[in-house]
């Protein structure tokens, strides 16, 4: 009786519609609505809104899941033995996504900025990977200093991934410009046969993306954006190897998104 005398608040009306109202206030709210036509009309309108939203979108959940969202195609991480066989499929999948992305955003300057960055990284690879005497500014022997310096200039804490498992050791790194005049970090790796891989990282405003692949004049690049940092892994080697290295780098780069 006492509870029923308390005036009903707007919060309670919303909670009532959303099924969040404590059971002991239910009768009070219903009595209130019976006596207050304005509030009853508002509650009815909110319910109609919710019905309209559900009617408009609930079909989507019943549609078949398109191939690009099939989790099986993304679960490669736990099944390394399948990786080689899957690499072709995964690349095709990323390429397909990339074409779709470009088609969708032809009027958008953001993918262009991302593309320009990737092209710049690929050019840097071509210029420096063939350099014999001065491939890097700071050698791997000074890795600690290199990382501190580049972190400071690029504007976020970065660390050269360890790619020894891929047969690559760090040669060193250098500071490079981005197409927009910001600073980018550039790490170079080398395998025992002298093949070089480079990793280019720079801050970007482009949205997060899955991995993309692009190739130009014998060198290829795999690139992606993660938490406002763009990464470009380049090499002149075959795609499969590039993909493996990119994935290894990707997995080591500390995800900057986390729960709170």
């Amino acid at each position: 009786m006492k509870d029923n005398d308390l005036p009903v608040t707007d919060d309670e009306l919303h909670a009532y519609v959303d099924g969040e109202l404590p059971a002991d206030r239910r009768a009070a709210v219903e009595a209130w609505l019976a006596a207050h036509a304005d509030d009853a009309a508002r509650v009815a309108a909110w319910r109609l809104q919710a019905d309209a939203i559900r009617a408009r979108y609930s079909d989507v959940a019943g549609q078949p899941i398109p191939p690009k969202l099939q989790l099986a195609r993304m679960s490669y991480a736990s099944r390394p033995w399948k990786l080689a066989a899957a690499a072709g499929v995964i690349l095709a999948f990323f390429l397909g996504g990339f074409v779709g992305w470009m088609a969708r955003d032809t009027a958008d300057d953001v993918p262009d900025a991302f593309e320009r960055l990737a092209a710049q990284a690929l050019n840097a690879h071509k210029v420096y990977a063939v350099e014999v005497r001065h491939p890097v500014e700071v050698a791997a022997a000074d890795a600690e200093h290199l990382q501190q310096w580049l972190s400071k200039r690029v504007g976020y804490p970065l660390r050269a991934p360890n790619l020894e498992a891929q047969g690559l050791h760090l040669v060193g790194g250098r500071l490079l410009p981005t197409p927009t005049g910001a600073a980018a970090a550039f790490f170079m790796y080398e395998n025992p046969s002298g093949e070089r891989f480079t990793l280019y990282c720079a801050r970007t405003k482009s949205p997060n993306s899955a991995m993309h692949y692009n190739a130009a004049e014998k060198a290829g690049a795999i690139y992606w954006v993660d938490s406002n940092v763009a990464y470009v892994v380049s090499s002149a080697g075959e795609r499969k190897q590039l993909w493996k290295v990119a994935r290894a780098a990707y997995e080591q780069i500390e995800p900057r998104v986390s729960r709170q």
Partner: protein
Amino acid sequence: MIGFKEEVQLAIPALRRYARALTHDADVADDLVQDTLVRALRSQHLFNGGELRSWLYTILTNLNRNRLRSLARRPTITAIGDNDAPDASSPEAGGRDIERALATLLEDQRTALLLVVLEGLSYREVAEVQGVPIGTVMSRVARARLQIRAYLENERPMLRRVK
């Protein structure tokens, strides 16, 4: 016991529904879901064993916010909901109205309302997804409803300016 990936798999239809309602564009929505799944699988080790569904909604919500920020620099974003061709599968004109009404909401309000009404999350879960107190979620839901009602009753596009 159901595994991490199986549970992610089960959430895909709902994530697609939520993404579609957020973006009003099937391709953009599926791109968002794809990026969400990639991120979730990769960050599996960061998942602390809480409610997986909320965590996936959190990732998708954040990715969408990043997307809107990068789009906000373009003036052409004013046309939300205008460019998509009439959807043959749309049941009735009411579907278009609610879509337009949703497009007039501030992003945080639209997110809160859709998570509650369409996805059936509790206020507490939405508070976790949005990283705000429950009271803020309730006020966002209330403002969203007020705005939608005003929009539908007036059916005037004056409120559809970009924020």
